[in-house]
């Protein structure tokens, strides 16, 4: 126990990324990258035993500043999720990435995310937060300037909010470590507290993609290396979730004390939960209306994170556990989904639904993975998505919060809706003739998908594995039961029994099926077309606007767009800057990003 594991865990990806970037030989950079992503995962898994007894801390002193890191249960949970999804994504990237540039920044953002989870004071937290943002920003920048700019601006906005909040906290507390802050936050005045709360909400809301700060996510998720998106959605967005939990740790008790309770939850928590509910609905509805496979999953990711926010917001031990559970399942199925998307985009070169169709026949392995992911995300019982959703349902409804419950119910249905759209457009129906030579997933992607799919099933059938871990994080036994049973007292879920009976049901159905006459395979042109003969020249699949009725039903609401609002705001800021330039500066000006940055810096200085 000579070397502290924390710097290894945090820095291994970054070093690996640099090496890969420097060497930049096809084959070697992939191996380096995968190994450097595997180190944190392996190390974290290795440390599991040790952590049940003690925590590991690490302090680095640099020019008067102290950087504190702590590996404790909660951080370990998040870091393992991030490392796992990051590893799968990096594995996928061996197929999809083209040059060392991507390896560097993908691994850098992994470092950032791990650092965020293990940081134990505000400065290191902020620094790694920015490393993470920078790495991911560079990944987006390479693919699309506009999307990256939007991501950058909003991240900047969030970062400055955080900076101001940290500043205010530091000014009134004089301590930057989490432990010190949570104690000292009791001294804050009510209004300062509210301001800090709001700023944190913005800062973490941006990263978690909470409504109405989600607008960067669809563009950024879709305009980058698709394997990397798995990490983006599976790991990076978890930093936002972690941030929300930090709010509880840092100023939670004071907030609860100052602002009082709303029914059985706290007021400030209810706001988080309500934002989460809106995120579910808005993200889900928008996901159903997308025409681009990447955007659909980007919005879906936003929508699913809304569940986590609800769980965190409700704030009971059970609901926090449910939220953490859903964080895990979100990482598992979302990571899987984005790898599937990566495979599809990699193999077909198409991203829009209208160019796809009938791929199940051509990519059976990927389809099998997609099937697991779909069932998991939709919350079909023996998979992990259901277990976490079920916990969340029970946690929220048992707290007598009907409106939040309504959001969750709506969310589960909208999940079905957009998944069916994905399934229909990509896997089934008539295949355009130019996709006839599509091959199945390349091996690294297949392995990466396989790992995540397997975990989806394992944690689904044995949710007790996760529940035990969650109990130990919170230090009390909230979820009773054993490996297969989740027992909350007022509700029980037995995954194994359910699986057994599902198998029995399917066997019964299968017996009925196999007793019937043999089946004959027919092509897609030999279907009911009101009696008319058709050829493959007719388009027989609804490729565009599959949910047009929904779009029309929501026409009134869809007219309001926060994306456009921000653009308008940005434009007016730009106009303002133009005016300023005309009257004041007359100097050279690069882009309006800088204007906004300056304005925000001024604000930040004022706040300090």
């Amino acid at each position, binding site marked *: 126990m000579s070397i502290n594991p924390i710097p290894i865990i945090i820095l291994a990806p970054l070093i690996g990324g640099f090496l890969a970037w420097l060497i930049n030989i096809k084959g070697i950079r992939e191996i380096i990258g995968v190994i450097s992503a595997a180190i944190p995962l392996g190390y974290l898994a290795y440390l599991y035993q040790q952590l049940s007894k003690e925590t590991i801390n690490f302090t680095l002193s640099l020019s008067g500043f102290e950087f504190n890191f702590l590996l404790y249960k909660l951080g370990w949970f998040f870091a393992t999720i991030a490392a796992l999804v990051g590893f799968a994504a990096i594995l996928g990237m061996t197929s999809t990435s083209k040059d060392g540039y991507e390896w560097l920044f993908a691994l850098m953002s992994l470092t950032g995310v791990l650092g965020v989870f293990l940081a134990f004071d505000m400065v290191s937290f902020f620094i790694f937060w920015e490393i993470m943002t920078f790495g991911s920003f560079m990944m987006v920048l390479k693919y699309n300037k506009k999307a990256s700019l939007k991501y950058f601006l909003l991240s900047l906005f969030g970062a400055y909010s955080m900076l101001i909040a940290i500043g205010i906290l530091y000014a009134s507390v004089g301590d930057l470590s989490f432990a010190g802050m949570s104690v000292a936050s009791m001294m804050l005045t009510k209004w300062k507290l509210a301001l800090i709360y709001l700023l944190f909400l913005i800062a973490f809301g941006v990263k978690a993609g909470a409504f109405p700060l989600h607008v960067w996510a669809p563009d950024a998720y879709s305009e980058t290396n698709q394997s990397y998106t798995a990490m983006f959605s599976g790991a990076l967005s978890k930093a936002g979730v972690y941030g929300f939990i930090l709010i509880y740790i840092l100023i939670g008790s004071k907030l609860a004390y100052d602002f009082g309770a709303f029914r059985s939850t706290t007021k400030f928590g209810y706001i988080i939960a309500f934002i989460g509910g809106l995120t579910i609905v808005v993200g889900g509805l928008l996901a159903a209306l997308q025409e681009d496979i990447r955007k659909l999953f980007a919005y879906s990711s936003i929508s699913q994170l809304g569940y986590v926010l609800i769980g965190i917001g409700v704030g009971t031990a059970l609901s926090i556990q449910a939220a953490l559970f859903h964080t895990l399942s979100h990482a598992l199925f979302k990571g899987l989904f984005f790898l599937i998307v990566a495979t599809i985009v990699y193999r077909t070169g198409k991203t829009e639904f*209208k*160019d796809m169709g*009938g791929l199940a*026949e051509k990519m059976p392995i990927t389809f099998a993975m997609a099937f697991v992911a779909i069932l998991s995300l939709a919350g079909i019982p023996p998979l992990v998505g259901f277990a976490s959703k079920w916990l969340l349902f029970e946690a929220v409804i048992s707290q007598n919060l009907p409106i939040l419950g309504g959001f969750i119910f709506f969310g589960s249905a909208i999940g079905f809706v957009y998944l069916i759209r994905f399934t229909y457009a990509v896997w089934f129906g*008539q*295949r*355009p*003739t130019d996709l*006839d030579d599509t091959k199945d997933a390349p091996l690294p992607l297949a392995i990466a998908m396989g790992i995540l799919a397997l975990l989806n099933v394992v944690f689904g059938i044995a949710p007790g594995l996760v529940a035990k871990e969650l109990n130990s994080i919170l230090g009390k036994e909230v979820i009773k039961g054993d490996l297969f049973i989740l027992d909350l007292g007022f509700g029980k879920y037995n995954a194994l029994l359910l699986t057994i009976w599902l198998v029995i049901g399917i066997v019964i159905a299968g017996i009925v099926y196999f007793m019937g006459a043999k089946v004959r*395979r*027919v*092509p*897609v*042109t*030999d279907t*009911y*077309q*009101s*009696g*008319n003969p*058709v*050829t*493959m*020249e*007719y*388009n*027989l*699949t*609804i*490729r*565009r*606007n*599959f*949910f*047009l*009725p929904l*779009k029309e039903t929501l026409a009134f609401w869809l007219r309001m767009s926060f994306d456009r609002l921000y653009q308008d705001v940005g434009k007016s800021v730009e106009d303002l800057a133009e005016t300023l330039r005309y009257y004041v500066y007359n100097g050279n000006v690069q882009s309006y990003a800088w204007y906004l940055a300056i304005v925000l810096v001024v604000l930040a200085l004022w706040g300090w």
Partner: protein
Amino acid sequence: MVSQSELVKEARENGMELLPLDKDTYELFFGPQHMATENFSIILKMDGHRVVKAIANPGFLHRGFEKLAEFRPWYTNIALLLRICVPEPDVPEAIYSMAVDELMGWEVPERAQWIRTVVLEMARVSSYLFWTMGLGFKLGVYTAGQWAAAYRERLMALFEELTGARVYHIYTIPGGVRRDIPSDKWLRQLKDTVEYIKDKLKDFDNVLFENYITHRRMEGIGVMDKKFALDEGVTGPNLRATGVAADVRKLDPYLFYPELDFEIPVLKEGDALARALVRRFELEQDLYILEQLLEMGPPSGAYKVQDPRLKALPRFKVPAGEAYAHVEATMGDFGAYVVSDGGSKPYRVQIRGPSIAHGIRVLEQLLVGARIADVPVILMSLGNCPPDIDR
């Protein structure tokens, strides 16, 4: 095992050049093997659930009536031409007979005229009931549809007693009708039936015509304005739903209609609901007309012209000339243009079915932008009858 790739490969091997797919829209064949179209086909280009483009594809019922009629004697044609309009076969009979009457210069006896009027009105009532059934089935309120078909059966029974056939009556012939009214009992039965159906109208109102959902389904769907309707040759209830008080029975009176008192229901909206409601009001008017006719009672006299030429029926010749006769059918203005060259067979017969105007261009234009769920409703509200397009 036939996969899509094999299909494509096979097509390529056969030297077929496969055109690329139109990926923004998809094609949907609506009919003929579909519950909403009776042997009529619309090819739809769809976007989501909206129709982008519609092409009517008629001709599944084409038998070449106009050609066949040129090779059949004048009287035999009755048995042929009535098959043009299946829901109310009395209309083609009547128009053809009226045109031939005009060519022959016959004054049809009053009794025959009265019977023809009664038959035409019964046909209108039965046709409207049949249409109500169709509307009910298409909207999903099967109860109304079933009731309507059941009440229509009463009229069918009366037709059977009068003419000997349920559907194809072959009853109205040039110069009068084929046989006289069977008995007074028949008239009483008709009166009872009229009363009965009139009584049941409010059931239809409750279930169908005044139903909240019906209104939601049909309001603002397939809207025509007056100019469009006139330009496109729209007639009958569809035209009256756009605010034109046009009815052949008033404008170009025939048979007993000048002596009858009835109203022309007119609505201004021009949407599917207006078209449906106009038909509903007309059903009431037709029952009222039948009541009046029955109150009047059949005039005495012959039921057929007494003309020596009829003795040599097979070689019966019609003087050269041309005539056009039209009546107000439930679908619209039904007309027959008959040209004779003085022979024992017609030289040219053209039947003008109203659906040829409603079912092709009007339909194609009204369907653009409609939802898939509106397609059957628009089709039904236009009262499209494919056989009179195809002939």
